């Protein structure tokens, strides 16, 4: 490399740095620093008179005041966080399994068999993605309310038609989670499944496998990246969800971890505990998030 080349490279490098800089600053100030602020609040103290947070910015002076309080809430005699945490895991697990069970056949059909009608199906699958979450929940609140169309439909079939579906039913919350997140899941699955080379499936048939065996021995292994990515895309937001639950139930019997965090954040004197709880959730999620980032990067390389 000649001296001139090096100047050239160095000069253009400054161009790239300059282009990346505004976005990078924005990301650092408004994505990295906020989590430090969260740490400062979590490690900070409480103004007993105003019940407001006193953040501590020096890590050496962080106190375990809020951490202890949260720990008491998890293990102490008046512990109340265990149930929402377990419930969150249960709801998320059931909702994501249901979502996968519905989304996979749909995405598979459109990716593989829709043929010339693929565009039409894609429009219909993409449509819910463009309809706001709030609208989709509102639609079901209308339908599920007492005296709503769902209950009317039930009673016209001779079933009990006066159930208060919005009065704190786990079934409703899980249903809401499935309904809320499935459009994203279907699109992710479709994007992966559409890239499967059909000649691989033909090769399996050619080598003597029946339709079903081809599905289990080839299609499913080839779908693994799709299933992993799709699971993360639904599980991660479900774990931090609080509004679905609030909209469709708003009862203590269905409280999820997101509701606890959200509630503490706005409760006088408990903001610090909310910060601790949010950090705990973040730490727990760091592993799957990191795995997801690395896995998708590797999958896109391997299956390219």
């Amino acid at each position, binding site marked *: 490399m000649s001296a001139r080349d090096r100047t050239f490279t160095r000069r253009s490098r400054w161009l790239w740095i300059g282009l990346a800089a505004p976005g990078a600053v924005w990301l650092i100030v408004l994505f990295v620093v906020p989590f430090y602020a969260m740490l400062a609040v979590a490690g900070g103290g409480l103004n007993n008179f105003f019940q407001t947070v006193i953040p501590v910015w020096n890590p050496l002076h962080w106190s375990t005041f809020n951490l202890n309080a949260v720990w008491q809430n998890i293990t102490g005699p008046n512990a109340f966080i265990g149930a929402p945490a377990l419930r969150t895991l249960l709801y998320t697990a059931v909702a994501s399994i249901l979502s996968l069970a519905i989304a996979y056949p749909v995405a598979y059909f459109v990716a593989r068999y829709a043929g010339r009608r693929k565009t039409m199906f894609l429009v219909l699958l993409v449509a819910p993605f463009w309809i706001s979450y709030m609208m989709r929940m509102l639609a079901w609140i209308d339908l599920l309310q007492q005296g709503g169309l769902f209950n009317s439909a039930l009673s016209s079939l001779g079933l009990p038609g006066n159930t208060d579906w919005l009065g704190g039913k786990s079934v409703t919350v899980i249903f809401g989670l499935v309904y809320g997140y499935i459009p994203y899941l279907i699109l992710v699955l479709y994007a992966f499944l559409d890239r499967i080379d059909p*000649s*691989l499936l033909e*090769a399996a048939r*050619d*080598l003597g496998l029946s339709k079903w*065996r081809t599905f289990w021995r080839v299609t499913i*292994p080839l779908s693994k990246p799709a299933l992993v990515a799709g699971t993360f895309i639904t599980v991660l937001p479900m774990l931090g969800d609080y509004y679905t639950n609030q909209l469709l139930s708003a009862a203590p019997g269905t409280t999820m971890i997101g509701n606890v965090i959200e509630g503490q954040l706005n409760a006088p004197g408990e903001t610090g505990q909310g910060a601790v709880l949010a950090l705990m959730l973040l730490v727990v999620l760091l592993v799957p998030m990191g795995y997801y980032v690395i896995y998708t990067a590797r999958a896109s390389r391997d299956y390219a």
Partner: protein
Amino acid sequence: MSGGHVQLESLTKRFDDVTAVDGISLEVQPGEFFSLLGPSGCGKTTTLRMIAGFEPPSAGKILLDGTDVASWAPNRRNVNTVFQNYALFPFLNVEENVAFGMRYQSVPKAQRSSRVAEALELVQLSGYGKRRPNQLSGGQQQRVALARALVLRPAVLLLDEPLGALDAKIRKQLRIELKALQEEVGITFVFVTHDQEEALSMSDRMAVMNEGQIEQIGSPAEVYEDPGTMFVADFLGVSNLMEAEAVGWRDGECTLQVGEFHLRSCCGEVGTRGPVKVVVRPERIQLLEHGASQENSLPGMIQRSVYVGSTLHVFVQLFEGTTIQVWITNTGQADAGTAGTPVSVHLPAEALRVLGAGDEPAPAEREGEAAGTVAAGA
């Protein structure tokens, strides 16, 4: 190896409003290396996919050793395919890929690994068993695909442009290996390609396809030397085309008039009368000194000559205006090259092929020709 007899009868495939394969019929003998050659979109791959079972035919029969398998699923047919992009399973290593089909052929477990090893040795990939497909070169992947199909000992092996994605040099090497392999295993090969050199160098017999129909079937030499149609003459190698008038006929020969000159021809449709097209291969023409009194010669003038290493491509403008190509072997003393030199072009009677009148031979003639060649080859 017994079996491996393939017969297609009036096989047709329509996709909505497009007819991809238009009622073709042909027969492949057991143990034969048979090529389907044609430009892209001629229906050769669709034909192969119908034999494999990936596409249901719209009409017609596919007989494998006498049984019509047209309605069978691919996994029930005793044929295997080597795909253009190899279609190796990315989540399995080489051994697992090769062993993949044996589970469903009730091959005893004990035999499987030895058969995998044999197959890998056959394609010279012993020792690569634990690698993943994406760790192999294109040529190696192609061999794995071959091993994976051959290990099942199919009656017929279908190859869909298997060399298409490879470098020119590897392609030439694999061409020889593939032919040797076919002779070794004795399985019927049906080989789809758009590369005429591939088809000519490997096939026992070949079919030239165009627009869903078969133009000609025959051995490579027959198809190359005696192209039945304009399309075949043009698609295989370089052909010079001239217009002439058939003026005299005498047992298996005819006399053609070009301007004031007369040429004798003894192949093709020598019985045709009136205006005809004549094709002649550039390597069969000789250039003589201007004024040489050789029969079957026409005067011309060198326009340009191109040096391509082993041969010299000389473009000669004939007295009546057409330009023809002449290939002269490079003997190290090539001097025919100067533009503007008048020459005499010698067109031997046995190299001049009469094609009959009109640009496109009538369908009836073409079919008669194709069927005739099938009979000759079978």
